[in-house]
């Protein structure tokens, strides 16, 4: 019982990973109708990864970023640019042609090479987050103001990506790409798909382990300290703004990695992944799963996307947005700890109260 209480989140995560790991096997055994389920779960893995990053910055440190879609998309674009150049053999793309560009633009050139691409997937979001974080946290921009500015920046980036359509293909985004492991279409390429899936799963495990490691150390206690009493943390002698910048950059890097994973399963990236709405959706996953727990972020990302996947086909599609909005509001108002909070704190308390109630009449009856 004690073990479950202490290791409950790790046990839960292991179960999720095992179920995911079994999916390709089930597909091979003919227990799944098609490969679309596996592809969808692959995207969910990406979502869980970005949610973990968001939980570090919001759940632990108390900084609500409404612009993580930007970092997710930056990682995604880096990946997509590499994959696109694989398709064109390093030549310029058709949308560049249409945009009147003759030779491959300088910004595209590093993406001819996979190692460089992998570095940039982490480095580009990190650099942007560093510039944003460094100035905002140094100037002590906090709370709602930070959230609004993070939104505004995302919106600005969205506009820029659309405006620079000869370089980014604007609204359409970068499409018609395969994955890092080649094509995953059709039964013949199933091995490729499985490799991609297991590599992504490994990334999720690594990111989860990293996050768990960080929050278990003094570093994690400091994040909580900054969330609960920023001034106090300053007076304890910690340079709070550099801690904030560090964790913000880290969560942006994680978002970038998630975006890169996502592109592989999605087969395209568009500026819509960079919108404010998309960023807020990510926050909702974390809130409903349970912020400040890491596992909550994973649960939230999977659960909500699974619901959306199953419900939003057919008649539910129109009201899905309202349902998720309502659930979010109820969570924020009544279940601050989200699903994890309910299971860990509220449910035991409720059972305890029930037991007490039962015990009292029993005693009275005994009299």
């Amino acid at each position, binding site marked *: 019982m004690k073990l479950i209480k202490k290791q409950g989140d790790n046990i839960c995560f292991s179960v999720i990973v095992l179920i995911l790991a079994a999916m390709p096997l089930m597909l091979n055994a003919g227990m799944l109708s098609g490969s679309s389920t596996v592809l969808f779960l692959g995207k969910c893995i990406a979502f869980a990864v970005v949610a973990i990053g968001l939980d570090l910055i919001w759940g632990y440190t108390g900084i609500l970023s409404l612009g993580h879609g930007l970092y997710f998309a930056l990682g995604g674009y880096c990946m997509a640019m590499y994959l696109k150049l694989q398709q064109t053999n390093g030549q310029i793309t058709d949308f560049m042609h249409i945009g009147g560009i003759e030779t491959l633009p300088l910004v595209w050139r590093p993406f001819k090479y996979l190692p460089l691409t992998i570095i940039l997937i982490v480095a580009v979001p990190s650099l942007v987050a560093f510039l944003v974080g460094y100035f905002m946290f140094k100037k002590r921009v906090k709370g709602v103001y930070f959230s609004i500015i993070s939104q505004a920046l995302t919106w600005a980036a969205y506009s820029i990506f659309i405006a620079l359509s000869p370089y980014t293909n604007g609204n359409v985004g970068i499409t018609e790409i395969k994955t890092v492991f080649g094509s995953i279409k059709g039964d013949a390429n199933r091995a490729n798909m499985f490799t991609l899936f297991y590599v992504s799963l490994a990334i999720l495990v690594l990111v989860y382990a990293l996050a768990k490691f960080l929050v278990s150390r003094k570093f994690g206690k*400091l994040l909580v*300290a900054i969330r*609960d*009493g920023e*001034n106090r943390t300053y*007076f*304890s*002698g*910690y340079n709070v703004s*550099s801690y904030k910048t560090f964790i913000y950059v880290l969560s942006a890097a994680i978002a970038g990695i998630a975006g890169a994973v996502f592109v592989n399963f999605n087969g395209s990236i568009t500026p819509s992944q960079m919108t404010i709405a998309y960023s807020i959706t990510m926050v909702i996953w974390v809130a409903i799963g349970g912020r400040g727990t890491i596992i909550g972020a994973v649960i939230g990302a999977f659960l909500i996307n699974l619901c959306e996947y199953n419900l939003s086909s057919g008649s539910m599609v129109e009201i899905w947005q309202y349902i998720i909005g309502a659930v979010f509001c109820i969570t924020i108002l009544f279940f601050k700890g989200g699903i994890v909070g309910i299971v860990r704190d509220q449910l035991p308390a409720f059972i305890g109260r029930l037991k007490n109630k039962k015990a009292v009449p029993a005693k009275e009856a005994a009299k």
Partner: protein
Amino acid sequence: MIVNENVLEINNISVCFDGFYALTEVKTAVKRNTVHFFIGPNGAGKTTLLDIICAKTKPTSGTVIFYPKDKEPVRLTGMKEYKIVTEGIGRKFQVPSVFVNLTVAENMILSLKGHKGIMDSIFRKPSGEDMENIYATLEKVGLRERADVRAGSLAHGEKQWLEIAMQLLQKPEIIMLDEPAAGMGKPETFKTGEILKEIKKDCTIIVIEHDMDFVKQAADIVTVLHEGKMLMEGSITDVLADKTVQAVYLGRGGE
């Protein structure tokens, strides 16, 4: 080596908030290893004075000089807040502000001296010596048994003591306490006074307080502020005997 017996000198500090003088030409010195009280009616500028010392507020004019033991004097005015902490000046706020979601021990770990960098806090675990030090300090304030309790579930008095313990751990030369006994009952207040007398062996304590019994119990020197100006300074008996002090402060329900 001659050790300056003053640990802090406040030289002609004035603070002006939009034309309103919260402090006017305050000049005093704090002696090493004493419990130095600042008292005065509400709005006298006591909290503002602490804000000046730890650089949370910038003075309109004047300087604060800190004389560390065995080191060169330091001018505190104009320094960064967190730098002042590393120089050896700790502060407890008026509102209890322990980290409620961390345990008592974790709160203490965050307050350990040194190793405040990001890499240190990720990779370095507190040493056995550090932990011993933590438990010894908790013992001093009577919280040894409560080390693994969430700080949020401590009683009000215990939270204040935890904060004092957290300050002590940084081995500061000066601890500033803003109304440490506020909201405490008589026995708790008395215990707080005893804790102050115990810890002044290791450091200097600057206290703001309204409770006169508490002042009598623990004070070495008392400075009386009134409407931003210094009214008088001296031992508690002198202060209590002073006519002006009685008129502006003690007469008004304080005693």
